[in-house]
């Protein structure tokens, strides 16, 4: 019998004027299955997941029903529901209730009224299984994001649920913590037979592992099948969900689209992708193995936008150095990205450039001027601006529009008047400036919404719009793609390109290797408090073997510097063409 059965479920929010958030969804999930739910933000994924636990179901009009082991979910009592269905949410911080790790692990069991002995055993069991024992007595505030999310998972697993629901659990984590987390989820599925229902933006890590992939669009299930078939279906439909597929799948269909020949089975992982590439070039040499690229020119501009020279920083005299002689230049009008693990000093560097932290040795130059020569506030006066990691820290008003207007307050008007007098030209009225920036960031339809009611990707764009109203010449971005799905990433990248074209210098810190590979002009590697190397993306990633894109990992045995899926497709096709030409010549 099916573990969970969703029958003709429709749902609409009371305020939505009859627009359905879920429309006629039917799904059957068997015991022990690993089900991946994907779709764009706002496609109804989270709404569907919330229907699987009555305490989380929002008010609204609901038709159809959800059955747990054949019983309608509303008829299952709260206690049974709490223990059999575990739910891990997106935000690692807010779902933690208590202040100590051990207490958090015990919290669910306390609620279910277990006695001391049982709780003690279960907590001990979970702490050992998840490797928590070393930080068992710690305060939760001391934990990293990855540890917090692992704690949330462990706290839920302590209640021994048979169904585990995860709503974008890794969107706030860095890639290494994220793949650790997803591996643990996979381990739970394999070792304990727990049924998993998960939504994720990063399909790369879970697509191949799923038994079933459900694709949603506008509240409807448009595909529901095993991973390989879903890939084929999405390609066939030319759905924009295809952009979220793992790199090997994208490359496969990208090549298959143009090359008219049998390519074998679709690869899902890097390993499968490698052998697939080997097989299609079997016996033939890939003669074209590199793409024409612009070579990296170091220090060629005389006045870089940002320049750090031998910067040393530590928080206190007795604490270890965070920055150890950091030196690099960011060329004007370029996109510079730096990647690197947690705690290597990336955020500290950004704060140094913002003058939030003062290095005890070395110099920071902004626009050719020493940072210490800028007066308080002058640095951010139409010069430098930073988009913080969490866009919410910028939202202070009731609507997006008001939030944008805040940037153009009385002080701004005064400044504009002064400029007008000085330069004698007419300024753009404030309304038009807002309209302009809203258009650039594609947030016109959001202007009247509350900034907390919109999705993560939209919040990111609104925050960017707000930052852009300062007319920055230099834009700093801290993890701009964190928690954003692939479509929003594309949109975001398009905005960055436009900004770059208008002469803005962009410096970003990111864990998102694929994003940096595609859109940055220069990529630098941060390690142990310094910039180790910096180069154009294709050179940079081609030199690395771990810290690189999946396209590169997949193809490095054949091509020299294919780093994005597009590069790879292009190279494959070019080689095919060459081969055909040769065969043709031989025939003649």
């Amino acid at each position, binding site marked *: 019998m099916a573990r969970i059965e969703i029958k003709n479920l429709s749902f609409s929010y009371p305020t939505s004027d009859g627009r359905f958030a879920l429309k006629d969804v039917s799904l059957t999930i068997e015991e022990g299955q690993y089900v991946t739910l994907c779709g764009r933000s706002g496609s109804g994924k989270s709404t569907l997941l919330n229907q699987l636990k009555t305490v989380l179901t929002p008010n609204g009009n609901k038709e159809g029903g959800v059955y747990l082991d054949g019983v309608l979910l509303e008829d299952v009592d709260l206690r049974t529901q709490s223990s059999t269905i575990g739910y891990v*949410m997106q935000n690692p911080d807010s779902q933690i209730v208590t202040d100590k790790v051990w207490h958090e692990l015990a919290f669910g069991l306390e609620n*279910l009224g277990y006695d001391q002995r049982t709780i003690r055993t279960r907590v001990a069991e979970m702490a050992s299984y998840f490797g928590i024992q070393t930080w068992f007595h710690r305060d939760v505030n001391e934990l990293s994001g990855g540890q917090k999310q692992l704690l949330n998972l462990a*706290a839920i697993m302590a209640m021994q649920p048979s169904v585990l629901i995860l709503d974008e659990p890794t969107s706030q984590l860095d890639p290494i913590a994220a793949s650790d987390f997803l591996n643990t989820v996979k381990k739970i599925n394999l070792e304990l037979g727990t049924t998993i229902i998960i939504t994720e933006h990063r399909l790369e890590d879970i697509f191949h592992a799923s038994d079933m992939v459900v694709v949603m669009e506008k509240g409807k299930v448009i595909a529901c099948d095993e991973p390989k078939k879903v890939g084929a279906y999405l390609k066939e439909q030319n759905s924009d969900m295809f952009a979220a597929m793992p790199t090997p799948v994208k490359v496969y269909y990208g090549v298959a689209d143009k090359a008219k020949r049998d390519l074998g089975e679709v690869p899902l992982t890097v390993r499968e992708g490698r052998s697939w590439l080997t097989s299609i070039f079997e016996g033939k040499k890939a003669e074209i193995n590199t793409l024409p690229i612009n070579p990296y020119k170091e220090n060629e501009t005389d006045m870089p936008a940002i320049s750090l020279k031998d910067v040393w920083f530590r928080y206190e005299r007795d604490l270890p150095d965070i920055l150890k002689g950091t030196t690099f230049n960011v060329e004007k009008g370029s996109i510079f990205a730096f990647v690197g693990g947690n705690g290597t000093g990336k955020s500290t560097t950004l704060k140094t450039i913002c003058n939030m932290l003062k290095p005890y040795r070395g110099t920071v130059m902004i626009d050719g001027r020493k940072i210490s020569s800028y007066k308080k506030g002058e640095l951010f006066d139409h010069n430098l601006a930073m988009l913080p990691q969490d866009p919410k820290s910028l939202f202070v008003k009731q609507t997006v529009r008001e939030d944008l207007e805040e940037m153009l307050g009385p002080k701004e008007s005064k400044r504009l008047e002064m400029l007008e007098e000085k330069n004698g030209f007419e300024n753009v009225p404030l309304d038009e400036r807002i309209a302009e920036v809203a258009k650039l960031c594609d947030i016109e339809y959001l202007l009247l919404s509350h900034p907390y009611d919109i999705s993560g990707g939209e919040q990111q764009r609104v925050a960017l719009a*707000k930052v852009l109203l300062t007319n920055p010449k230099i834009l700093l971005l801290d993890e701009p793609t964190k928690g954003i799905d692939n479509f929003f990433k594309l949109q975001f990248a398009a905005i960055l390109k436009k900004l770059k074209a208008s002469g803005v210098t962009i410096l970003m810190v990111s864990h998102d290797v694929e994003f940096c590979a595609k859109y940055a002009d220069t990529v630098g590697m941060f390690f142990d408090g310094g910039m180790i190397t910096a180069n154009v993306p294709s050179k940079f990633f081609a030199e690395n073997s771990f810290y690189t894109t999946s396209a590169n990992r997949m193809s490095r045995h054949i091509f020299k510097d294919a780093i994005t899926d597009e590069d790879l497709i292009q190279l494959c096709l070019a080689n095919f063409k060459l081969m055909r030409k040769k065969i043709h010549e031989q025939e003649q």
Partner: protein
Amino acid sequence: MQKEEFTTYHPITNIIFFLGAIILGMFLMHPVYVVISMVMSLAYLFTIKGKKAFKELAYMGILFVLMSVINPIFNRMGVTVLFRYLGRPFTLEALIYGIALGGMLVSILCWFACYNAVMTSDKFIYIFGKMIPSVSLILSMILRLIPNFIKKTKQISQARQCIGMAGNASENKMEKLRNGATVLSTMTSWALEGGIITADSMRARGYGSGKKTNFAIYYFEKRNIILICVMGLLLAGTIFTAVMGGAHAAFIPNIEMTWFGDINMFGGAIAYAFFLFLPTFLNLKEKIKWRVLRSRI
């Protein structure tokens, strides 16, 4: 912090000791008792904090001197006049009273410093939860939220500075205030949003689905019973002798107190000293034990 033996005992054992030490310390003003309390609390502080205790000692030293000197300046009572200043008498009795007060204050502060190191928040919550179960969860949640809020407030104000919305050179007091208010209101909506998620997370884990139990990671083993019995005996001894007049001390106008000849005073002081010495004793015992164990290898 150095390895501390008393911390490993059950929170109930811990709290009995600290309640005893602090309450007795406040009532027993007899100089001998004050000296005992001071010596023992300092000894314990040293075994807990090691060299770091010196830093705190400096402040306490200043406080002690201030208390001793200020009391006789304002308190003119007492028969033995040492000297006069501005026509006012500076008496020996008031000075000694001041010294005793200062000593008492320092020893209480020392005990609180030890309390802070030993009674961590989870122990406190455990004790509290024993009395009022529902409050203990709230306390635990508050203790989690406060550092969280501080972090977020910092994050918001930094984010605003980085877009030039705060911390400008031309900013006046009014603007600064307005900026602070904006940060605070943002904080509030952020906290409320987080609160909704936390509430969901609690309900999803069965909060409110029926009777709740309280889990604690502390074991109440035999050594706790033994220690509590010993503490009980010593406490009873101290209190009994004090009631019998063993700790009687009057400073003003005449100094008048029991001295070592009195059996109640003598016995009480010994019981008091032993009681306060217990945690330090446990630490020393453990240290010696490990040294012996190591030397046998």
